[in-house]
């Protein structure tokens, strides 16, 4: 079978792939609560949010600032949090990341990790605070394992996202 003719010069990455890979990866990250894990404590880190933060830090400006709304909505429906909590928290995180991007342009790897850690801690704490406000008390200490896992998963997810970025921009 003959390969279809493609230009050898000046190739452009597929527009569909360029748009779909980041969106798809965040949505798949948000779908992790569908895995057959019946946990009696919150253990699974918020993969959707980690992937979202990684894309934003790796390729600033890839998301419009309002991207937290649709992604948060999708995450809320699947995660079991009250609907609206991720919409609110993810929007705030994306606005904050955008401001950081404008203010602190030259950052190194460790600073990025620090920013991601703060964002993740904010998201988890905020989710717990919303639950405690709407329902009843759960202790803050419940979140420690999830926080530690999320913070230490960030470098791994960042590698994965970088690999996905290669696929995305492949010509």
């Amino acid at each position: 079978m003959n390969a279809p003719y493609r230009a050898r010069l000046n190739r452009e990455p597929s527009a569909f792939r360029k748009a779909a890979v980041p969106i798809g990866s965040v949505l798949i990250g948000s779908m992790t609560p569908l895995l057959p894990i019946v946990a009696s404590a919150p253990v699974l880190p918020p993969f959707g949010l980690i992937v979202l933060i990684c894309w934003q830090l790796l390729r600033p400006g890839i998301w419009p600032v309002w991207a937290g709304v649709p992604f948060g909505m999708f995450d809320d429906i699947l995660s079991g949090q009250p609907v609206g909590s991720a919409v609110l928290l993810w929007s705030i995180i994306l606005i904050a990341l955008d401001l950081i991007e404008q203010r602190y342009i030259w950052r190194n790897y460790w600073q990025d990790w620090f920013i991601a850690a703060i964002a993740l801690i904010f998201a988890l704490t905020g989710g717990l605070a919303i639950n405690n406000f709407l329902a009843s008390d759960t202790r803050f200490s419940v979140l420690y394992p999830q926080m530690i896992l999320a913070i230490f998963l960030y470098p791994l997810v960042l590698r994965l996202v970088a690999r996905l970025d290669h696929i995305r921009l492949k010509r």
Partner: protein
Amino acid sequence: MAPPRNRRPGFSRKAQLQIFTGYLLAFTGAFAGLLLLALSHFDPAAFSAVRSLATEVSAPPARLLTGMRVGVQQGWREVSAYFYAGSKNAELQREAERNRIRLIEARALKQENRELRRLLGLIKQEGRPVATARLINSSASSSRRFATLDVGSRQGVQRGQPVRAQRGLIGRVLETGPNTSRVLLLSDAENVVPVRRARDGTVAFSQGRGDGRVDIKLIDIGINPFKVGDVMVTSGNGGIYPPNVPVAIIEKLTGDGAIGKLLANPAATDFVIVQEMYEPELADPAASGLPPANTQAAAPLAAPRRAEPATDAAPETAQTPATTPADPASQPRAEGQQRP
């Protein structure tokens, strides 16, 4: 490089407006999130249709994966059972011998219990099973504790029905879809279950801590009577949960109660049973001719109520207080024996 003074990307009006609209949309979105939160606070069932749609769509692959997970768990258990097979076999045979004798005793006790209950007019309402199912996934990344069950309203599951495993209580059904339903697990902070100590009936209630354990809180605050290793079972008060289902074993004592470990770990259970909602039957003392089986303090209160329907026994009731006025508890017992 210092950040630019102004954020204008250039002289393009369109690019400037795009940035402005982006921020406007982002802040509006965050505010919309707040509104959605308010909506889900005042109407918790508002998004149940969307949620159940999502779980319905994701249920078939989740079911398959759960089957694989359970298969792996069981396979591992079987492999590990080969070690120490001989000594374990002998030990189990000895235990089976001992249990056989106990089983016969228990059967006799059960028969006796049934007789006594019939005598009391108490109908023991066992929660009839509605469906047997598997927990296919859970809200593992949220601080609320929900799980998804792979049966729904088509299989007869309704809101509020208790869910139990063989080893103990799991939770109750919160939302139902056609083929899936959402279960509020015992370890959720919103799940409060009236319990009592299996040994002596000390009343308490259990509330989830969100980390797989429950707080056992005493109703009667005083000296903490709990000991590590006490087993708490449901008391059946207030309905929903049938009585005498094991809930938790006490692990640690606290100031106003204890912390209990759940007996039925949802992660380790294979199948769970959805039962009918328990409705406590009010035993009418007049119908049985006996006071409710509780302490002596209730007996004088029950005495005048019994007197109305028992017209044929009227001369006796008039007579007995005169003979034994000091012992109100013996009076109904004597009458109950005469009646049949």
